[in-house]
């Protein structure tokens, strides 16, 4: 009996197990426990939530290993962590810590302005952001085992996440309606490998799980993303920058499970107190828009 680790099936399968769930950004062990108690399927360990990265500025990097290990010790659910785009050494460090998933994330300051990490080299699976289908397929071609549509992280404004889910969904539907001999040009236009383009055209979906992220702050936001075809949601600043994180976290979990039942979403939305204040994406000067990082 030979046991093989790090296969595409094992990496992609891990993401399948997270479907229908909420992954929450946490900056310490206490927050991680609140997230686990609220029903999060995983936590994303990071030093500053996007809202603070935005407020404080500067270069955002991988978190301190001590802090990641404290979070790993505090909870039994999977722990994810972020590496900078292209920073394969940060990714190697995270793999050595035994994190369950690495997010090669535009929320951190990119370390390479041309290349992403060669994710096939790793045993640990990666999730990567995408604003459109071509970008998603390029990441999958580099070995990403999960995709999250990018939103504008740290704003509480869901409009970018919405735009990118519509874009990815629309491009998939377009491929599904094409003749096979038209897919070559489609691959050229998407700047994505033909084999992946063909697979998407045939199956009508990405070959990996698609979550959504960026600006989700309320149960209704989570349900909106699920109804746009997301397999699950990441909530970053939205929970721990709100008035009552435990209650809001549990409410977002409920709304994600029953996204198609407005009564449940209504109940989940009651008496949550203050949501994160939020920033309108339109008010952000273009150089500060995180979702425009990556290519």
């Amino acid at each position, binding site marked *: 009996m030979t046991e093989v680790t790090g296969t595409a099936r094992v990496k992609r399968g891990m993401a399948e*197990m997270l479907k229908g769930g909420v992954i929450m950004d946490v900056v310490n062990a206490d927050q991680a426990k609140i997230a686990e108690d609220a029903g999060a399927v995983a936590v994303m360990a990071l030093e500053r939530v996007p809202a603070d990265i935005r407020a404080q500025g500067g270069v955002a990097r991988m978190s301190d290993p001590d802090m990641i290990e404290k979070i790993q010790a505090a909870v039994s659910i999977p722990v994810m962590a972020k590496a900078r785009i292209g920073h394969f050494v940060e990714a190697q460090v995270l793999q050595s810590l035994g994190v369950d998933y690495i997010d090669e994330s535009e929320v951190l300051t990119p370390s390479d302005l041309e290349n992403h990490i060669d994710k096939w080299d790793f045993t640990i699976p990666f999730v990567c952001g995408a604003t459109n289908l071509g970008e998603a397929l390029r990441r999958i071609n580099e070995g990403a085992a999960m995709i999250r549509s990018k939103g504008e992280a740290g704003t509480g404004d869901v409009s970018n996440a919405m735009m990118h889910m519509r874009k990815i969904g629309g491009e998939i539907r377009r491929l599904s309606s094409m003749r096979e001999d038209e897919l070559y040009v489609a691959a050229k236009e998407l700047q994505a490998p033909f084999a992946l383009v063909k697979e998407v055209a045939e199956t009508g979906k990405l070959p990996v799980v698609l979550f959504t992220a960026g600006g989700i702050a309320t149960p209704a936001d989570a349900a909106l993303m699920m109804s746009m075809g997301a397999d699950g949601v990441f909530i970053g600043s939205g929970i721990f920058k709100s008035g009552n994180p435990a209650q809001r976290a549990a409410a977002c979990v409920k709304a994600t499970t029953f996204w198609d039942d407005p009564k449940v979403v209504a109940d989940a939305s009651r008496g949550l107190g203050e949501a994160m204040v939020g920033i309108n994406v339109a008010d952000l000067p273009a150089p500060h828009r995180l979702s425009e990082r990556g290519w």
Partner: protein
Amino acid sequence: MKVGVLALQGDVREHVSALIACGVTPISVRRSAELDQIDALILPGGESTTIAQLSEVFGIYDQIKDRIVQGMPVYGSCAGMILLANEILDAKVGQKSFGGLDITVRRNAFGRQVDSFESDIAFDDGSADLIRAVFIRAPWVERVGDGVQVLAAVDKHPVAVRSQRLFATSFHPELTGDHRIHRYFIEEVARPALEKVK
């Protein structure tokens, strides 16, 4: 036979596809009324803490537990195995299971995701053919009670167990496209149990 898949969280879609491939009509179960319609249930892979908690929040925890006591056939994969176990080690504080299967299971026993693996293993359903088994942050069984059969093991740790109408695997047959485990549940576990009741 109507087979439900508990659809609160996890890889519900893969189990639904496997059931369709086996010629069974699947029903996604999130509500009490859906639970009333089914003859047998699959507890999918996912996050066991999340699934248990959502079943309580949405008021179907007791109903599932009662149906198991009353004799509903159930198959659980990975998180589903944890949810069927009478006792859980390395659980979150206060973590509940539906129980019914007299086993002690250790969560994430094979390790974190970096240790997740696939392997060809023997499955004791009468066929000598090996089966491709995918283990993702998988549990194993540390104690089996009286009347619990071990149907597969990895390094001497039981990874597939059965007690009459309750069946569980630490691996994910729903990810491989090989439906032998689902067929086993339907034909060897659920159907005989349901015919006995009639």
